[in-house]
């Protein structure tokens, strides 16, 4: 198994898919020079400017044109640069791409991967830091993926490219350089959570970079005598409801932690779904950003972050609450 970074892992998946299938191509601003995070570095040299295509600063056209090209038989990978800019193409994604197959009675498909680098990235402020995965999970027709490790960024990218549905693919831009082993033979599966740590005391559900935080919190908690089960959802639609429910049935305690705003976040979906099916030992907890905007000053930005200590404290309180 090779060790590679989160960014390289997705790039490898794309390169392999492009070698296998001539219909796959990538389009976005500055891709010819490797893309803003170098996620495409070197690909133009291998695949040429038509398949690693630059684009005007026209997010609506990037999204809309890629969709048109998908309808006639290509398989585009669309680069939105920052998830925030994808909001300039919301009609195209929500009203067109997500709905076309249904509205047209199954006549068309939109086999597309829509890459939207998400999340806080030191001092990028309110227009370059958003995490809106909850929005996309709410939209019928879309598949939503939030990988957190090189392994999953490889395997899920492969799966996303192979998928005939439009996949909103949210990479976290804070972890491009995160390294890890990648087993290229292990297939990515939508709706299959990754068990990051086994434990019987408390279930911690997370995704995207926050899942890495959740895993390390698990280690910290173990030192304090609490065995957390850490579940990385990997994909939010479909999501592995069964895995979470089985875990909470075992632990009786649920924490959901995510970087995005807590109010109306996907954590609410997880907590609500579990609450509808499992009687828990103590009330569940959600940890997410307060309903405020991402600020530029680092100390202000830090006020919005879910931290290891916050998760650990929540777990400890849940253990103590019951003991009391």
């Amino acid at each position, binding site marked *: 198994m090779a060790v590679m970074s989160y960014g390289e892992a997705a790039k490898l998946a794309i390169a392999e898919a492009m070698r296998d299938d001539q*219909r796959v*191509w990538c389009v976005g601003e500055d891709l010819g020079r490797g893309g803003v995070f170098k996620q495409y570095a070197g690909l133009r040299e291998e695949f040429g400017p*038509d*398949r690693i295509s630059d*684009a*005007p600063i*026209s997010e*609506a*056209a990037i*999204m*809309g*044109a*890629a*969709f*048109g*090209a*998908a*309808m*006639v*038989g*290509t398989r585009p990978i669309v680069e939105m640069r920052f998830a925030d800019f994808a909001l300039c193409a919301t*009609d*195209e994604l929500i*009203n*067109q791409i997500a709905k*076309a*197959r*249904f*509205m*047209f*009675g*199954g*006549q*068309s498909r939109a086999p597309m991967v829509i890459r939207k680098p998400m999340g806080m990235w030191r001092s990028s402020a309110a227009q370059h830091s958003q995490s809106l995965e909850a929005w996309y999970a709410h939209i*019928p*027709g*879309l*598949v939503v993926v939030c990988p957190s490790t090189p392994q999953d960024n490889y395997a899920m990218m492969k799966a996303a490219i192979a*998928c*005939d*549905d439009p996949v909103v693919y949210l990479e976290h831009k804070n972890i491009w350089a995160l390294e890890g082993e990648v087993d290229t033979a292990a297939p990515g599966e*939508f*709706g299959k959570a990754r068990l990051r740590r086994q434990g019987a005391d408390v279930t911690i559900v997370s995704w995207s970079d926050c899942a890495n935080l959740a895993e390390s919190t698990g280690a910290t908690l173990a030192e304090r005598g609490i065995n957390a089960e850490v579940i990385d959802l990997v994909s939010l*639609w*479909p999501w592995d*409801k*069964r895995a979470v429910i089985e875990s909470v049935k075992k632990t009786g305690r649920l924490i959901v932690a995510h970087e995005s705003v807590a109010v109306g976040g996907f954590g609410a979906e997880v907590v609500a779904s579990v609450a509808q099916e499992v009687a828990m030992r103590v009330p569940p907890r959600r940890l997410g950003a307060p309903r405020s905007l991402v600020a530029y000053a680092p100390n202000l930005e830090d006020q919005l972050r879910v931290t290891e200590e916050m998760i650990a404290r929540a777990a400890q309180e849940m253990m103590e609450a019951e003991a009391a």
Partner: protein
Amino acid sequence: MSLRNFDAGKGLERLVLMERIRAFEEAARHAAVEEELVLGAIHLSIGQEAVAVGLLESLAREDYITSTHRGHGHTLVKGADPAAMMKELLGREGGCCGGKGGSMHIADFGVGMLGANGVVAANITIAAGAAHGVKLLGGDQVVVCIFGDGAANRGPFLEGINWAGVFDLPILFVCEDNRYSATTRTADMTSGDVGARAGALGLNVTRVDGNDVEEMAAASGEIIARIRAGGKPEFMHARTYRLDGHTYFDPATYRPEGEAERMRAETCPIARQRDLLGAAGIAAERMDAIARAARDEMFAALEAAKAAPWPADDTVFEDVQDVGSPALEAF
């Protein structure tokens, strides 16, 4: 249109198509108004038939079009089955979109009709992309993208046309200018000139009388041949007039008094084509028979639609998505 070089045989074919569009929409309106069988909004292109007919005759079945909320005519001319279209308007099984789309989302991918659209101008970037896909796949199809005058004020107009220019795509953009955007005179909300906009985006622009089916056909034929021969994207500004309201239930009282009546009398493309054919020696009875046949065809399509059942309830869970489909047990 003068009679020089006029091909009456072709002219009759065009009349047939225009009459079929008109009859389809009259049947649809009948179904909506008299029988209350069409539940959603439908937008009629009565008075604009020459654009669809003249524009699309040079396309092959494999070529692509994208259309708007006012897309019955385009769809029909591209080759869709009127019975399937009518079933779609009535939301029935056998409708071209299985009853899921209705008039505003009418589509027939089998004949290269990639969809009407309920969002003004959204089809512009999509069409540019279809042409982009054709180019990437090495195909030789041409794409025709039709939108209204109001659509020229939305951002995708700029983004989509620039895209086609940058990537040199085999596409013809057609502004079907019927002077109105819903209840607003488009000129009042438009600065500058629509054709000039496309010109400034690097495209060759052709301006035509969209109510003259012969002129439409001649101009479109030339342009599409140029594009097919490997030329650049082009733009056509076709002036026409919407004889009816925005939707079938809009009385269109906002128009200047007498405008619609005058336009109906002077510029109806069907009447004009009949005059031309008459001058070329075609008997009125023959043309009346064409109109009658069209009406019979379309009212028969309506009867077929009325007889069709509703789609099966659980089709509402189909064709949403494969992965995480609502049809799966788990959800």
